[in-house]
């Protein structure tokens, strides 16, 4: 692989296409990219597979940085549904708010949301770390399998419904907890990982203000007596 250029390549989506942008990002000639005028386009910077840096100046539509694997993507604006869905590694930052299913099924990497996230943030997450500066909507961390989610604001109803092994930290209030999700003791190792996650996200909060939630593991084996629990 040829050495990547150190100059920033600027792609203006007012005149260029998302297809041309993603084709370039999948076979990059530079390490640094700036994307202008995304104007809510879908699948912006989806499928990056190496450690390039992409700054998107403006709002994006669905699935921005989808399946990111190693890229450092910052969206200077808001993001639509499924930002960083199924991310494997790397970092995706959104300075504004995001719509539903942020970080859905993501296996790794760090997703930082400066504002708030709508419903189903971290749904079915499989190892990603998600840090939300604001609040998350209902049914967040539904069926969350692995990884950690930090919410500096409040969480809506149904938090962690049918959760498996993911760990959730919430600083503000939590609506009704989802099925099999319970509050858990915050021990030193949890304060330590929480501090690390906040530092990685560039957020400053007193870790003592957070409460921890996780799986009671009562629904790991199906029994008909539990049918009403779901």
């Amino acid at each position, binding site marked *: 692989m040829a050495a990547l250029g150190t100059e920033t390549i600027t792609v203006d989506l007012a005149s260029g296409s998302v297809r041309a942008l993603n084709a370039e990002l*999948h076979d990059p000639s530079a390490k640094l990219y700036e994307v202008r005028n995304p104007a809510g386009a879908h699948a912006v910077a*989806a499928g990056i597979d190496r450690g390039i840096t992409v700054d998107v100046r403006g709002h994006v539509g*669905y699935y921005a940085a989808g399946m990111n694997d190693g890229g450092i993507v910052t969206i200077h604006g808001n993001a639509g*549904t499924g930002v960083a869905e199924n991310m494997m590694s790397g970092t995706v930052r959104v300075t504004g708010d995001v719509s539903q299913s942020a970080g859905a099924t993501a296996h790794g990497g760090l997703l930082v949301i400066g504002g708030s996230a709508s419903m189903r943030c971290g749904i079915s997450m499989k190892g990603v770390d998600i840090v939300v500066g604001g609040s998350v909507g209902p049914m967040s961390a539904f069926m969350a399998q*692995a990884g950690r989610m930090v919410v500096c604001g409040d969480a809506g109803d149904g938090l962690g419904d049918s959760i498996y092994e993911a760990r959730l930290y919430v600083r503000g209030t939590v609506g009704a907890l989802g099925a099999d999700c319970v509050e858990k003791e915050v021990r030193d190792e949890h304060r330590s990982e929480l501090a690390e996650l906040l530092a990685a996200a560039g957020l400053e909060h007193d870790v003592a203000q957070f409460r921890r939630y996780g799986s009671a593991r009562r629904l790991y*084996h199906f029994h008909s*007596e539990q049918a009403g629990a779901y």
Partner: protein
Amino acid sequence: MALEHSPSLRESATFDRGVIAEIQRAAETGVYDIRGWGAKRAVPHFDDLLFLGASMSRYPLEGYRERCDTDVVLGTRNARYPLHLQTPVTIAGMSFGALSGQAKEALGRGASEVGTSTTTGDGGMTPEERGQSKTLVYQYLPSRYGMNPTDLRKADAIEVVLGQGAKPGGGGMLLGQKISDRVAGMRTLPAGIDQRSACRHPDWTGPDDLAIKILELREITDWEKPVYVKVGATRTYYDVKLAVAAGADVVVVDGMQGGTAATQDVFIEHVGIPTLAAIPQATAALQELGLHRHGVQLIVSGGIRSGADVAKAMALGADAVAIGTAALIALGDNSPEYAAEYEALGTAAGCYDDFQDGRDPAGITTQDPELASRLDPIRAGKQLANYLRVLTMEAQTIARACGKSHVRHLEPEDLVALTVEAAAMARVPLAGTDWIPGAGHGAERSWTQGRGHHA
């Protein structure tokens, strides 16, 4: 048993012995029956159709001399690299987890030997499967277990799964006894727990969202790969139209006889429609869009057993078919070789459907290393290849008899039905008549376009 020999004893048609046994079982255990396989009840099927061979008004093709092609190209609408298969019989999606690694490898070997595709399942892509499958379709499922962009790029096509015929509207359940460390690792879940697979995708809802999801998958894979959309057969006419609107290159329709690894018996037997009833709806939807045989391909699955079934599905409008249950049988599932062991499990060779338990004596639907090692992937793959060749040759035989130089040239005109029900569902005339029950009436009239002389 005494009952068979006592004409004075009267069994209830409503509460027969099977029903009574199920009530007793439910009362005793408090759980519903979960099993594998597809619908076991009798429904109108391909057996209820016959071909009109050529005679005076049609010319047949010479059996051993004149060509009758069987190849099919899938994904011509948008993909840079459509699939070109040598036979229209493909292998349906079945997961590593539900099946042993050896079984997945055997499916790849058998399919590759005859130039067709195999398909991953809910649980990701294994190296064995990729390595042994010349053409591999990668399923994109609600659970996204094991989903990653590296494997996505290794795939030859992507199948977005909305549902399957055995359980349209249902998710999945892989019971803890099949969750080995390897299966658990691939799914990012603890070993030994019951794993639920969601019934809805986590990041899109409805056809408008699906269009954007398909766009994303194409962007990630640089528009190289065909994108299939798979639905369980229910409101097939509308589902096919919506799948096409969302951008599908290929639509896969799975009827209620299609198999599953583990689903509630009540779901398998009571939700969804027969394959026979689904195909004409799918074909009509594509015809009305001007895409049938041009642009969007139709794959049909659910109860395909013989070359006659292949030919009938294609005559009704399918471009290809997929087999699951039949492929497992070809590998050795339900083989009399293990009769004694099936009996020890309380069942019999030919009736075994407890795929969820992971104790398959044939080593196919199991994660038990000892049982799985019984299946020789090379031998089983050879058996599957043999079976696929037979299906292909049988379909050719029928196509030639109907005067077709390609199996895809078979058409509804070549078919008649044996029963009123099959005639109504398949939209072909009852044998010996020109009567298609229901044609020309009601809101479904558009499905019968192109058959005006029968309307």
